[in-house]
């Protein structure tokens, strides 16, 4: 646990100076706050922009930040230094993962509060976001583990993020895309956010979410078994 805490603290200091990662945590909360306050169309559903951008946030920020952090550490040899200092892969991933989740949750908390969400609905929103972030964090970690360097990580993370974040949005305007999009966890989270706390969660949604979580976890385990964190 001491090792994970040290990694977490290191990451807190490092990200403050790492604009590429920092922007991932700030960008969508900022866009959401600006759009929610600047654009107000008549009959627009409540928290429209918050829900739309939240899904993009949970698909992009954890995947890109997690994979960027791990792949950079691999490329620069700092991960090797940590492993040689007896930091276990679990401690390392725990430290970075907790940091990533905390940073994303902070962004989600800020954007939802500033957009006026509160009470039971707010807690429901945060719970959904936390689950979504966790799935994305595992996907980001899998990409980081698979990629040998930052460039390789980017080439993997960009298509994953585009599919996961844009499909729910495009699906609103195109039925064919919507039929495909529903099999991704981001679309399911979008629907759950739109239905709100009193909406009923269908069995199909539950199955799709569970399958997505299992597949992402499986990809992470396979990636880890294939590459490890610091294998020669």
């Amino acid at each position, binding site marked *: 646990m001491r090792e994970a805490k040290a990694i977490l603290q290191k990451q807190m200091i490092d990200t403050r100076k790492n604009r590429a990662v920092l922007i991932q945590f700030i960008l969508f909360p900022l866009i959401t706050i600006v759009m929610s306050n600047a654009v107000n169309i008549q009959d627009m559903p409540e928290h429209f922009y918050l829900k739309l951008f939240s899904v993009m946030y949970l698909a992009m920020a954890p995947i890109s930040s997690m994979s960027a952090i791990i792949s950079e550490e691999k490329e620069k040899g700092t991960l090797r230094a940590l492993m040689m200092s*007896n930091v276990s892969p679990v401690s390392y991933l725990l430290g970075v993962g907790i940091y990533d989740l905390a940073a994303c949750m902070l962004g989600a908390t800020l954007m939802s509060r500033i957009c006026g969400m509160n009470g039971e609905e707010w807690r429901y929103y945060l719970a959904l976001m936390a689950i979504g972030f966790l799935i994305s964090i595992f996907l980001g970690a899998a990409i980081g583990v698979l990629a040998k360097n930052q460039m390789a990580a980017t080439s993997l993370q960009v298509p994953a993020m585009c599919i996961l974040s844009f499909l729910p949005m495009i699906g609103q305007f195109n039925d064919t895309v919507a039929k495909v999009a529903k099999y991704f966890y981001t679309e399911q989270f979008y629907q759950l956010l739109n239905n709100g706390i009193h909406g009923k969660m269908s069995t199909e949604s539950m199955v799709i979410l569970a399958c997505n979580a299992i597949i992402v976890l499986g990809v992470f385990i396979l990636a880890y078994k294939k590459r490890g964190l610091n294998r020669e």
Partner: protein
Amino acid sequence: MIEVTNLSKSFGTKKVLDGISMTVRDGEIFGLLGPSGAGKTTLIRVLTGQLKFESGEASVMGADVRKLSGEDKKQFGIMMDDLGLYERLTAYQNLKVFTDIYGVSVDAIGKVLAEVKLDQDAKKEVSKFSKGMKERLRLARALVTHPKVLFLDEPTSGLDPQTAKEIHEIIRNRKEAGCIIFLTTHNMTEAEKLCDHLVLLNEGKIVESGSPRELCLRYDHQKRIEITTTDGEKEQLPFAGGAVERIEQVLKEGRLLTIHSQEPNLETVFMELTGRKLEA
């Protein structure tokens, strides 16, 4: 103590370490001298548990390197070029990551930064450091946890002579403090200056071992003395060939400027044994 017996390691079909056997005693500076690609770094990786090997035995401080525990690794300080630094963090923050991991007091950071003469730059971002400063910080990271065994892979490679001299001084101080120093180098001057015991490694095999002086004397086949006279003339005199008489004569004439024995240096010894240059 570090003990290695008949250790072999291959990458694919290429054997990079072939039947290595050696013993490193406590409080000794042990040097592994060889050209690039000789297997020096691989041996450090094996001894620090980073690489598995096919056959043989290796132990550090009594612990089998195949089964190093967290407590065993705590005794090691490792300085290798590919163990990176956090460039966006300061020197102090870099070391704090590792004192936090090991549970070492932060007081050690200031002391070790002073030891490597980076105390004035403790709050400076590492990205702004020169190569020499980064090497000193790597050394500081290896030292900050008070290791009993120091593994140093080419610790002064590419550094200016002043920085190299400072690093040598730190290494000697740690030896005085009872630390085992295991260093690799392809720099014969460094090996001669620093090491108590040397192993010459070529293409994964030990070709010779001993103290630097022993090695040079062992391969002194020529056994010659070189004298320089006051008029700049140099003469090579074989031990058994009237050297005493000639030196006596030059001395009597008051023309003797310098007199040196002509034993080979480590580079020459290595060349004789392998046909290769050390710096290659």
